[in-house]
C-alpha cells in the first residue's frame, strides 16, 4: 500500500494514529490536565493537595522572589543558547560542507554523547572542573613548566605560587554544563537545513562578487533561518527548564526554575504551588513556540 492509499483511506489512517494519539492523551494530556487542576488548589497542613478554585498560587508565583528566579533562569538559558549558537553554527556548516565521505562520521561524533547517560556526563564535568580536577591539574603543570623557564632565564618567582581556579559550583559552571548538553540539539536542525540548501545560490553570490562573509550573512544564514530558529528554541527551552545541571554544577546562587519546582514538589510538599510555577514555565515555552511559528511562516528559507 502506498502513502497515497493511506491518505485516501481514512479508516486506515485513523487506526494508524490510535497508538500514538492514545499514548499522548494518557501520558501527556491527562497528567498535564491534573497538574493544571492542582495549580488552582491549596496545600493542606500535612502537604496534602486540596482541590480548590483559587489563584493564590499564581499570585505567589509572580512574587518578586520567585520572579527573580524566573528571570535568572531566562538569563542563564539565553547566555547558554548564545554560546551554543556561536559554537554550533560553524560546526553545522563545517559538517554540511564537508566532503560526503566524512559527513556521517562527523554527524556520529555530534550524536555520540547521547549514547551515555546525562548524569554520567555531568559528573565527568565535576571531575574536570573541581579544585583538584583535570583542568586545574593541567594548569598547574603549565604553571610549573613556565616557572622553570623563567627561573632558567634568571627570573625566579615571577609566576608566584599556583592557586587552583574556582571553576565549579558557580553559574559559569552551570552554563558550561548546559552548553555541553544542548549543543547537539542546535547542530542537528541547522545541519538539516544547510544540507538541503541549494548550493547554486551560494555559487551565484560568490560569482557576482560577494565575499565569503557577505555570502554567509546575506545568503547562507537567511536561507538556513528556520533551522537556526528551531535550534535556538530547542536549546533555550531545554536550558530554561533544566534541573540536574544546576544541582550538580551550581553553587549557592544557582537555583533555577526547575529546582524551585522540584523543591515545591518534594521537601515543601506544596504540589499546588509547584503546579502553578510549572504552568507559568509552560506558558513561557508556549509563547516562545508561538513566536517560532510566526517567524517560520514569514521566512522564505528552506523548510525541512
Amino acid at each position: 500500500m502506498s502513502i497515497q492509499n493511506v491518505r485516501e483511506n481514512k479508516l486506515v489512517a485513523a487506526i494508524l494514529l490510535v497508538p500514538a494519539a492514545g499514548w499522548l492523551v494518557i501520558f501527556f494530556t491527562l497528567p498535564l490536565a491534573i497538574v493544571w487542576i492542582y495549580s488552582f488548589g491549596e496545600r493542606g497542613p500535612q502537604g496534602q493537595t486540596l482541590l480548590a478554585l483559587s489563584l493564590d498560587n499564581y499570585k505567589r508565583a509572580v512574587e518578586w522572589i520567585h520572579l527573580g528566579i524566573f528571570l535568572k533562569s531566562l538569563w542563564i538559558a539565553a547566555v547558554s543558547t548564545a554560546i551554543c549558537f556561536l559554537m554550533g553554527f560553524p560546526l553545522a556548516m563545517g559538517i554540511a560542507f564537508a566532503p560526503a565521505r566524512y559527513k556521517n562520521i562527523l554527524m556520529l561524533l555530534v550524536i555520540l554523547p547521547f549514547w551515555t547517560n546525562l548524569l554520567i556526563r555531568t559528573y565527568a564535568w565535576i571531575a574536570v572542573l573541581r579544585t583538584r580536577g583535570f583542568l586545574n591539574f593541567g594548569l598547574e603543570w603549565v604553571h610549573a613548566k613556565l616557572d622553570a623557564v623563567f627561573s632558567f632565564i634568571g627570573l625566579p618567582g615571577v609566576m608566584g605560587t599556583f592557586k587552583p581556579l574556582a571553576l565549579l559550583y558557580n553559574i559559569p559552571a552551570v552554563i558550561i554544563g548546559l552548553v555541553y548538553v544542548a549543543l547537539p540539539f542546535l547542530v542537528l536542525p541547522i545541519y538539516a537545513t544547510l544540507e538541503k540548501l541549494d548550493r547554486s545560490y551560494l555559487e551565484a553570490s560568490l560569482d557576482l562578487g560577494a565575499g565569503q562573509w557577505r555570502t554567509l550573512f546575506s545568503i547562507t544564514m537567511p536561507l538556513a533561518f528556520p533551522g537556526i530558529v528551531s535550534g535556538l528554541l530547542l536549546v533555550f527551552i531545554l536550558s530554561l527548564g533544566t534541573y540536574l545541571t544546576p544541582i550538580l554544577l551550581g553553587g549557592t546562587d544557582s537555583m533555577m526554575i526547575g529546582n524551585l519546582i522540584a523543591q515545591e514538589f518534594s521537601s515543601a510538599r506544596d504540589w499546588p504551588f509547584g503546579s502553578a510555577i510549572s504552568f507559568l514555565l509552560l506558558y513561557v515555552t508556549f509563547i516562545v513556540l508561538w513566536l517560532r511559528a510566526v517567524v517560520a511562516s514569514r521566512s522564505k528559507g528552506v523548510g525541512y
Partner: protein
Amino acid sequence: MKRLLSSTMTRRKFLKGATAFGVGMTFAPQLVWGAEEKKLNLYNWDTYIGENTVSNFEKKFGMKVQYDLFANNEELFAKLKEGNPGYDVIWPTDYTVESLTILKKLMPLDHSKLPNMKNIDPDPNFSNPPFNPGLKYGVPYMWGTIGVGYRKSKVNKPPTSWKVLFDSDEYSGRIALLADMRSVIGITLKYLGYKMNSVVPEEIAQARDLLIKQKKHIKSFAEDNGQDLLLSGECDLVMEWNGDIHQVMAEDKDLAYIVPNEGTQVWMDNVCIPVGAPHPDNAHTFINYILDAKVNADIANFIHYGTANIAAKKYIVKEDLANPAIYPPADIVAKSESLVDVGNNARLYDEAWVAIQAG
C-alpha cells in the same frame, strides 16, 4: 534524607533511578479468609537492613517477602498519601510518621503481638517520641545525627560549634551545607538558641538572614554529595548525615565526624504498618522479629547505624559503639531535637529557603 552504604556516588544515583522504576509496580490486595497467605511486602530505604535478615525471616516463618526501595521520605509520603499500593511494612522518618498519622495512613500497632518491644531503649526519645507518643503507630528502628564531617589536617581544631559553618569566614570557600530546607534552617535556629522546630516568623527570618550573609563563604548546598566534596578535597568541612560521613571515613583516615556542642538534629526511622496493608498479621510477626536483640544487632552491625534496641547493644561491635559518627556523646544527644511536622507553618520554611537560594 538518605543513608546508603554503597561506595560510589554514581552507583547511588543509579540505585535511586532503579528504585523509582522498581516501585512502580503495585500489588493487588487480596481478600483472605482466616489465616493470611504467607506473603509480606516491605518498603524500605536502600541498604538499610541486614545482609540475611529477610532471607532468614522467610526461612523461619515460611513466608515470601517482596522487598521494595524508596529513596527519600517525600517519595514514600507521595506514594502513601494517594492510598497504600499494597505495602505491609514501611520505614518512615520521625516527622513523616507524624504527617502520616495525622492523615490516618498508619495502622495502630497491636502491642500484644509485639513481645519484643521490651527490648526498646526506655529513654523517652525512643520509647515515647513526640512524633509517635506511646509508640502507637510504629517502633523505633535506627537513629542518627546531622553533624560536621571534616578533614583533620585542614582544620585548626575540631569544629565544636556550628559557628564555623553558619557564622564565620574562618573556612571561607571550603565549607558545604546540606541542601535540606528543614535541617539547615532548623540547626541554624538551634545555633541561634531557638527551638529547632520554631514557627516564630522572626526567629526563622533571623536564621534566614544569617545564612544569606554566610552564603559567600559556602561553596555548595550539597544535594546528596557532601561526603564526596569532603573526600575529593573540594571542601574541608561539610554538614552531613552521620552515615554518609561514616562511609567516607572508612576510605580516608584523615576524615572525622563531630556533633557540635549546641546539639543537632537527631533523626530516627520507624517501622510502621500503613493502613490497607494486605497482611497486617505477618507485618506484626516481622516487626517483632526485627526487634529481637540478636536479629536487630545483626542489622545494626551490617548497616552501621545506631540502634534504638537496648537489648541489642551487647551484640554490637566495639568499634561502632565507640564511633561518634554512629553513637555521639550522650550529653550532646540530650541537647538535640528531632523534626516535627509544622503543618501550615511549613510555608515559613519554604519561603526562607527559597530566599536563601535566590539571595
